[in-house]
Each structure stands twice: as C-alpha cells, then as structure tokens.
C-alpha cells in the first residue's frame, strides 16, 4: 500500500472512502442530472409555448385583421365609390343640365336675343366670370352662335359658384368659340393684353364628345392654359341633327385627387380607374397606380399582371371581396367598387405589411415581452444552473471531507490497533483496551477479543515459561537422579578382579530417565556373594525412590548374614509398614557360596532365572515363588538351593527382557531369550548380556522401549583353578 498524505492507497480507509464518495457522487450526479433535465425541459416547454403563442397570435391576429380589413375596406371602398360616383354624377348632372339648356337654346334660338360676352379680363382674375376665347383665325363677331350660347352665362356662373369641385364649366360652339366660367382670367391674357387663342375643336373632350355623340369623361389631360392635369366631362349638343356645340365641366385633377389623397392613409390609398382600365385618380406618385396622362396611361388589365387584370376587370363590373394581389413584388389587399354613373371603379389598396402591421406590432411587442421573459427565465435558469453547480461542488467537497472523516474514523482505531499490536514485544506487554476502540461496533469487539487474547497469551506464555523452566529443572534433576541411581548400582567391571572363582556382569537400561529396576551384588563375607535383581512396580521417579529404599533395605538386611528368605521377609515387613502408595517390588535374592558354587535363593514374585550348567543349555529354573515384596504384610518366603558346577552360568533378568515389544505389539518372550542365550553358550557374562541385548534390539527394531531392561549374569568358575 502506498501512503499519500496519511491515506493508505488501497487501504480500508480508501475503500470506505471510495464507497462513500461513489454513493454521494451518484446522488449528487442524479440531483444535477434531474436539475439539468428539468431546466432543459422547462426551457423547451417555455420556448415551445412561446412559439405556439406566437403562431396563435399571428394566426388569430392576421385572420382578425383580414376580417376587419375586409369588412372595413370593402365598406369604405363602397363608400368611396359612392362618394366618387356622387362627385362625378354631380358634374355629370351639371354637364347634362348645360347640354339640355344648350339644346333648348338651339331649339328655340329665335326666342333668344344675342347675349353679351366678353374676352378674359385680367382685372377680374380671382373672381368667377364668364369669358370667351376662340380659335385662331375665327372671328367671334361673325359667329352666329356665340350670342345664343352666351345666354347660358348666368347659369354657368351659378353652376360654377355653387360647386366647389368644378374647375370651370363651358360651352364650346362648333364654329370654334368657347364661353367658359372660371376665376383665372389672367391666365388667358398675355402681358401685352392679347387674349391667347384656344383651339376649341382640337381639344380631346371636343373630339371625344363629338365622336361619342353623348356625354363623355375624358382621360386625364393637361389644362390648355394652366398645364394642370385635369379631367373634363363633356356632352355634345345637336340641333337638327347637327353638332352645334359641346358643353362641359372641367374638374381639376387636384380637386379630385385632393379628395382621393385625403383617403390615403399610411400604407393605403384609394384610386379611381376608368372604364378603359387606366388610373384616373391616385395619390400615388410612382408605380403602376400612378395617375398618368391618358396618352401615357396604361390599361391595368394589360399590365401583364393577370391577377391584377382579373381583379380590375371584376372591379369595373361589381364590388369585389378583399383580394390579395402581388404588385411589383409587394403584396396588397384590394377591394373594388364600380361607379355606376361612369363605369369607373374605385379601388382601395392596402399594403399587406401595413394591414398586418398591428399583428407585427403585437408580435414584436409579444416577442419583446416574451423575449424579456425568456431572458429573465434564461438569467434565472443560468443563476439556477450556477447554483446547482455550486451546490454540487459544495456537496462533492462535503462528500470528500465526509468520506475522509468517516473512513478515517473507521480506520483510525484499526490502524491504532495495528500499531499497538506490532509494538507488543515479549511476554510482559499486553494489548490494552483504549478509549479509541470504544466505537460500539465490531472494532470494539475485535479490540476486546484482542485484549482478552493478548492477556490469555501472556498468561499462557508465562505459564509455558514456568512449566518449561520446571520441566528443565525436573529434567536436570531427573538426569541427576538417573546418574545417582546408576552410581548406586555397582557398575565397575570387572567388579571383583581379585576373585577369579566367579565373574559377574550386570546392566540396567531404564526406559525413562529413572527406572524402577535394579540389580545389586555385594560380598556378605569372604565367601558369600549376595546377588539381587529387582523390579519395582510402576516407573519414573516414584519407582526410582521406591527402588532406592528397597535396594538399601535389601543390602542392609542381607549384610546381617541371615538366609535369603529371612532377608525378603524382613524387607517386606519394613516396606509394608509404611507403604501407603501400595507400591511393590519383585525381588530375586540369592547368595552364592563362592567356595562351593552353591546358591541359596528366594524369589518374591520375580522372573524365573535361567541357569546353564557347565557345557549345557540355559534353562529356566521354575523356582518356588513368593508374593512380591510390599503387597502383604507377614508373608513367608521359601528358599531353595542350587549348585553351580564350575563353568555354570546363572542369568537373571527383569520382565523388560521377555516383555520387550516390537512395533506390532508382539513380545520378545522367554523362548527367544533362551535361544539368544544358547546361541553362544561359551560367552562371558558380559558377552551374554550383549548377545541378549542384541537379540532384543534385533527383534523390536525401532519400537520404543517401554520397560527397563536389566540383566545380571554370574559365571561360577570355581576354586579348583586356584589350586
């Protein structure tokens, strides 16, 4: 594990830290995602709603506007047509009145005297007056008609003065003179007082009226003198089928166009189109709807704009519905209403953009309101977003610190514990419970377990140390005891180097450190050798102690010179008197008369001795047995005698020999022992013991030795050799 700033990378702390961090990040992430999604969808909804509202406003507003426009425009067009019609029909009526009056004059020419007429008088300029002009080369004085038609002077003057629309009214005679009323006398007289000539019969109105034979309205013509464009309504007057005069009224275009202009609103206007499809009146100063001189004007129906042509054709016949027509790349709403009197039509034109301007205004207002709302929303959303980011950052920071703290809190006691445990040395220190482990969770339990384990381990180690020391001490003492025990047995061979009449050899191999077997031999007097072999019940230290006591008691008793049976009885009595542990010992005790080879022996529960008479085989001597020593008080032992001829051997052993056991649990047995003995009948006592030992080892192999193995061999050599 690497350690960075006190945090173990890959450690428990980092893992817990990661876990908490991941969890909190997930929650924060979800929060951020939900916030973002919510805002996004809210924004989407707002935008969608806005655009839907916009569309709805456009739709509703436009259709409303169209409906309003249709209603108002058709209505106003009809009204305009009516008014225009009224205007022209007034003029028409005036001209018809003049025509009727003139016809009447000519009909009853005889009844009227010639009326005075005057040339234009600049002095009367500004005042309505009747004036006369004539064609060049025509003499008014010779005109037969001028005096007649001059009778219309008063009526024409009255007509002119009563109408604010008439520019002038006149009567022109077929012989090239004209009487007219207006207030612009000065216009007709040159600076040197000459009256300008006037080509009456070349005027368009004259020609048209003459040609039509009925009342006509001319196209737009320039006024002969003022040059102001105007329109003339004229009607021919016949007398006896002859054209005698043309009457008419002059309407300056301005007076109509003033009126028409007054209808013009922003983006909209009214124009009058004649039955020839030409624009007669229009406030437009350019474009297709501009009123031009008739010579230059274009028939709208031949403009190449089929929609416009169809509309104009219809408008000349009847009232039209609101129609959207594209003209010169611009869209216009138009309605038309015909002027019944003249076969003209009034067309109201409204620019679509202007018609929809309120919609546009409403939309732009809406957009601005909505835009500002959206801006506010966006600002708020932005603020909210920043807030979310800030909160998220704070949460992440808190999560970081929190995860660090929590994981630290969890891991700290564990780390502390690890340090403390690692610091424990030797058996004196123990793991102590500390407040840092009081976490009320598994760590506390773990710490308590450690503490208890540590104490137990320390106690155990102390105990083990103590036991080991004890064992060592005991081991040492046992080793010492073993040596003392062995030292107590005669173990220097040859034991009696100055006694050639016998040879004795003995060995004891204890199974444990100290054994319960013992052997002993000692000279009781010059010719009597005491031989003891014994086996204490049990093993180990108790057996060894008991054996020591037994050995000393045996020797002490034997040294008194009493018989073997008496020795055993005495020792049995001594041991039984104080044997609460109920231990006992088997003893074979014999006394060899070294002079005769006679052995007097008594057996207290010990193994049968093996005897080899000189030159013969070893055989077990099934002697009389008494009870083991220490079992019962007051036991009497029998003794017996056997005589060893020179060269004879007596072999004594403990049960460790026949009961030596191999790995399979089979005992060595006395048969094998005898076989081992008889295998080498001439062997010295030392060799005899070695032979038996070898045979045992060969038999048990690696199996553990359970019992002490103790052997004694005496060879009686005899005294005769001395002699």
């Amino acid at each position, binding site marked *: 594990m690497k350690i960075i700033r006190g945090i173990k990378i890959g450690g428990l702390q980092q893992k817990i830290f990661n876990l908490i961090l991941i969890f909190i990040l997930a929650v924060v992430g979800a929060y951020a995602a939900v916030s973002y999604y919510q805002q996004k969808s809210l924004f989407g909804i707002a935008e969608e709603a806005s655009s839907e509202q916009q569309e709805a406003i456009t739709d509703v507003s436009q259709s409303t506007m169209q409906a309003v426009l249709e209603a108002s425009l058709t209505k106003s067009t009809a009204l305009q047509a009516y008014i225009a019609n009224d205007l022209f029909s007034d003029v028409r009526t005036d001209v018809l009145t003049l025509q009727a009056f003139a016809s009447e004059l000519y009909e009853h020419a005889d009844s009227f005297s010639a009326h005075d007429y005057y040339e234009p008088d600049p002095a009367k300029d500004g005042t309505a007056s009747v004036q006369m002009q004539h064609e060049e080369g025509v003499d008014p004085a010779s005109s037969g008609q001028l005096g007649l038609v001059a009778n219309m002077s008063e009526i024409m003057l009255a007509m002119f003065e009563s109408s604010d629309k008439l520019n002038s009214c006149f009567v022109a005679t077929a012989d090239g003179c004209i009487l007219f009323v207006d207030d612009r006398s000065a216009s007709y007289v040159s600076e040197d007082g000459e009256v300008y000539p006037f080509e009456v019969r070349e005027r368009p109105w004259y020609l048209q009226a003459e040609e039509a034979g009925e009342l006509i309205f001319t196209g737009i013509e320039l006024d002969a003198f003022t040059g102001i464009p105007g329109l003339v309504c004229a009607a021919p007057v016949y007398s006896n089928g002859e054209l005698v005069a043309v009457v008419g009224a002059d309407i300056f275009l301005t007076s109509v166009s003033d009126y028409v202009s007054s209808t013009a609103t922003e983006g909209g206007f009214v124009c009058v189109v004649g039955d020839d499809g030409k624009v007669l009146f229009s406030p437009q100063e350019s474009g297709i709807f501009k009123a031009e001189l008739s010579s230059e004007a274009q028939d709208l129906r031949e403009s190449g704009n089929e929609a416009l042509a169809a509309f104009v054709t219809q408008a000349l016949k009847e009232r039209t519905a609101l129609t959207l027509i594209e003209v010169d790349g611009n869209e216009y709403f138009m309605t038309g209403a015909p002027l019944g009197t003249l076969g003209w039509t009034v067309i109201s034109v409204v620019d679509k953009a202007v018609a929809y301007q309120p919609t546009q205004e409403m939309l732009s207002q809406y957009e601005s309101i909505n835009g500002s709302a959206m801006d506010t929303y966006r600002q708020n959303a932005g603020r909210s977003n920043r807030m979310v980011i800030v909160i998220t950052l704070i949460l992440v920071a808190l999560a970081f610190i929190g995860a660090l703290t929590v994981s630290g809190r969890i891991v700290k006691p564990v780390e502390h514990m690890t340090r403390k445990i690692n610091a424990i040395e030797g058996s004196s220190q123990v793991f102590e419970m500390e407040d840092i482990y009081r976490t009320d969770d598994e760590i506390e339990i773990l710490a308590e377990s450690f503490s208890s384990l540590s104490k137990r381990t320390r106690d155990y180690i102390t105990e083990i140390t103590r036991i080991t020391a004890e064992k060592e001490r005991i081991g040492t003492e046992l080793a010492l005891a073993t040596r003392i025990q062995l030292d107590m047995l005669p173990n220097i061979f040859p034991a009696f180097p100055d006694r050639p009449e016998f040879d004795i050899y003995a060995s004891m191999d204890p199974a444990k450190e100290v054994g*319960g077997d013992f052997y002993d031999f000692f000279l009781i007097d010059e010719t009597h050798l005491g031989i003891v072999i014994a*086996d*204490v*019940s*049990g*093993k180990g230290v108790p057996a060894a102690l008991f054996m020591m006591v037994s050995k000393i008691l045996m020797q002490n008793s034997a040294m008194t010179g009493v018989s073997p049976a008496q020795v055993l009885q005495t020792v049995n009595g001594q041991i039984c008197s104080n044997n609460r542990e*109920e*231990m*006992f010992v*088997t003893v074979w005790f014999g006394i060899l008369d070294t002079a005769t080879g006679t052995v007097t022996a008594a057996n*207290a*529960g*010990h*193994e*049968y001795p093996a005897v080899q008479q000189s030159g013969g085989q070893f055989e077990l001597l099934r002697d009389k*047995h*008494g*009870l*083991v020593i220490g*079992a*019962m008080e007051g036991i009497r032992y029998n003794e017996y005698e056997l005589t060893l001829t020179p060269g004879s051997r007596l072999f004594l052993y403990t*049960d460790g020999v026949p*009961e030596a056991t191999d790995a399979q649990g089979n*005992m060595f047995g006395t048969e094998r022992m005898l076989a081992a003995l008889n295998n080498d009948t001439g062997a010295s006592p030392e060799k005899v013991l070695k032979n038996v030992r070898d045979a045992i080892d060969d038999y048990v192999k690696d199996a553990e030795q*359970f*019992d002490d193995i103790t052997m004694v061999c005496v060879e009686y050599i005899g005294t005769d050799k001395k002699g």
Partner: protein
Amino acid sequence: MLNIEKFSNGSELTMALTGRLDTTTSPDLERDLRDSIDGITELTIDMGGLDYISSAGLRVLLSAQKIMNKQGAMKVVNVNAVIMQIFNVTGFSQILDIQ
C-alpha cells in the same frame, strides 16, 4: 488401549477389561475403580479380553484387593495363560481369588 466395561447390579460390580493393562492404561482403571468401588461388596474383574498386565496393573489389582478385603470380596475371572503365568511368577495367584 484399555477398554473397561462395567456391569453394576446393586452392590455387585463387574469390570470387564479388554486390551493391555500397563503403565499407560493403569491410571484409567485405578480411577474407575476409585469412583465406583464405594458400597460394592462383590467385585469381579473379567480379564477375558486382556492381553497383558504390567507391574503397574498388578499394583491396581493389589489396591482393589486390599479395599475389597475390607468391604467384601473380589474375584478375577477368565484369566488367560500368559497373565496366569504373570500372576504365578509374581505370587499374585496366592492373594487373588482367581476363578
């Protein structure tokens, strides 16, 4: 490797031994006897399954015999030849009631 089976009938107790009665196993028998010998007037040691007896085993038998001498009687039954020889050699045949 000693199996001890006990059959109790009032003050009569039979302990059947199987295996080896040696230094290692003798304490088991000694403990068993100490625990169950109170109030027993007739103790029977069945050695039918016993293969071997060591001096430690003999000591336990001797203790039992001494106790039973005071409170009743003890007998040893089903003794095989090997063990009988040991009893003979050690003189225990003289103090045990072997049947």
